[in-house]
């Protein structure tokens, strides 16, 4: 189809600041993350605060995973909650299996399901490294199958977004069923131990938050190296004109599939870190709203700049934490309002505010006498 190639380009995408290579914003952000981790260790604030920082960091990892495919590759997933949930569910299974193995107290889930012992597919989940590997492999596997089917048949743009949303919805319906065997409606909770330590102990809470911050910093450093590499340039090229990139000899299916699977694994990692901090997982993590919200975080922060995703995830979720205590029913309206402000006024998200140097029009024209 010549149509795809002969259509006019989008307005030249501004590369605000050096997005590839050196990026002072990102460097500053990584320093801030390190400082926060040190602050938590040194000052030992209230556990609920530490816990909140840890959860925000997990959301930031999730946002970065989406920014990699959306901001840099032009693939808008409205189903990233699926990969987040895969990480979360596998982690929950590990925590239950681990607690059961050490304490001998059967988790509620077993009574609820009427099991005498954990079924065969839980085998090995007492081991944390195995659980982590399983979470990443499952996320990558599901992403691979879905990506292969979509990218090979050249499902793109809004069609891909809709199908990804359908996928997460189907997964939610599946997990709501009790006979899926993962807690159904109730999900899984009552995690007793983490690496043998009582879950609520202050050291465990701080350890989880600091680990999550560390993983966030690591993911940012790795993602920056990726987007600054020749592969990163191909990602931008693919985002702006995939057909053109193919006619230059590049098989874009492989590129998209690789980055898509990587993104799914990062999202799963975020889920693994999130669940022990929030203490519960249930099918609502797979609700389409959450998956859409992830895209909203990235859009609000500024897509195509890794730092923007972090800022968006932290800003929106901090606001949500605060509001869901103060006035929960207002949240949907505030979120929609934020989206409108960004869509209408700040095409590059909150990062536009930083780049803004507002000068009144009459001054810019040289004053009324000019």
């Amino acid at each position, binding site marked *: *189809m*010549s149509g795809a*190639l*002969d*259509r*006019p*380009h*989008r*307005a*030249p*995408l*501004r*590369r605000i600041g050096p997005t590839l290579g050196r990026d002072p914003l990102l460097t500053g952000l990584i320093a801030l993350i390190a400082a926060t981790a040190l602050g938590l260790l040194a000052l030992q604030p209230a556990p609920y605060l530490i816990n909140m920082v840890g959860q925000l960091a997990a959301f930031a990892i999730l946002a970065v995973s989406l920014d990699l495919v959306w901001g840099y590759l032009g693939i808008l997933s409205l189903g990233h909650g699926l990969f987040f949930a895969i990480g979360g569910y596998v982690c929950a299974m590990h925590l239950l299996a681990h607690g059961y193995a050490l304490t001998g107290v059967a988790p509620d889930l077993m009574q609820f399901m009427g099991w005498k012992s954990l079924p065969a597919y839980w085998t090995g989940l007492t081991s944390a490294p195995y659980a982590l590997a399983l979470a990443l492999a499952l996320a990558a596997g599901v992403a691979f199958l879905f990506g292969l089917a979509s990218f090979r048949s050249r499902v793109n743009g809004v069609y891909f977004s809709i199908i990804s949303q359908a996928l997460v919805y189907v997964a939610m319906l599946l997990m709501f069923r009790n006979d899926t065997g993962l807690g159904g409606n109730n999900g899984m909770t009552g995690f007793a131990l983490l690496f043998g330590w009582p879950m609520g102990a202050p050291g465990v809470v701080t350890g989880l938050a600091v680990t999550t911050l560390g993983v966030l910093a690591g993911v940012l450093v790795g993602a920056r190296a990726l987007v600054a590499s*020749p592969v990163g*340039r*191909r990602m*931008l*090229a693919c*985002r*702006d*004109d995939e*057909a*053109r*990139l*193919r*006619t*230059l*000899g*590049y*098989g*874009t299916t492989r590129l998209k599939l690789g980055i898509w699977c990587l993104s799914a694994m990062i999202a799963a990692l975020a889920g693994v870190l999130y669940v022990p901090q929030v203490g519960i997982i249930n099918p609502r993590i797979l609700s389409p709203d959450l998956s859409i919200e992830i895209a909203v975080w990235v859009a609000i922060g500024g897509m195509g700049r890794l730092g923007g995703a972090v800022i968006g995830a932290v800003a929106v979720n901090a606001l949500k934490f605060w509001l869901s205590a103060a006035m929960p029913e207002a949240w949907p309206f505030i979120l929609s309002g934020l989206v409108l402000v960004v869509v209408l006024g700040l095409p590059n998200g909150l990062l536009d505010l930083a780049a803004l140097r507002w000068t009144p029009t009459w001054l810019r024209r040289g004053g009324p006498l000019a």
Partner: protein
Amino acid sequence: MSALVIDNLHVVFGAFRALDALSLAVDSGEVRAVIGPNGAGKTTLLDAITGITRPRSGRILLGDTYDLTACSEAEIARAGVRRKFQKPSVFPALTVRENLAIGCGPECPARTRPARLASTLSETGLEARADTLAGALAHGEKQWLEIGMVLASEPRLILLDEPVAGLSDAETASTADLIGALRRPDRAILVIEHDMAFVEAVADRVTVLHEGRTLFEGSMTGARADARVIEVFLGR
């Protein structure tokens, strides 16, 4: 030896025959112009050669033997076919140098890339703009950058769709010089253009396309004298 053989090619869109039993052979070392009125099927021909549009029937051979008809876009490009699109198609978020680096192709060895980039930058006169974002270039510079992206991989078949559209007379003249300099015995160049003076300056032979069929093939002088060509195209 032929660089490109098009054999009885049919491309249809619904009931519309965009290319109708088209046959065409371009020799190595030749610069061939394809001209014809709007909608004649010139761009569709390039779409078929580059794998963007699948022909209903017929064959497309590269260098007498290599069958491109069933290949993917990327495979065709890796076989040594590069194309400049009718609308300048550069990557706006990348710099000129990064665009050219992608133009070198996935198989270009890292050792030879810097030399290729340097020579392509000087051939296209874009050295001073090497670190500018392609999205910020002027129209003429984009056309030249896209030609540079085509050259950077040292292709054996170059397809140029209206390379001087929207260029000034001076830019058109230097583009004609550039195409002259690209001639090599082991390379064929196929140019689509509406600018007849430009075609006369660069092409060895012309093919006149009309409603998906070949109306005339031969020298530009011959085309100017051909009654049917005058009627459907040149005479208007």
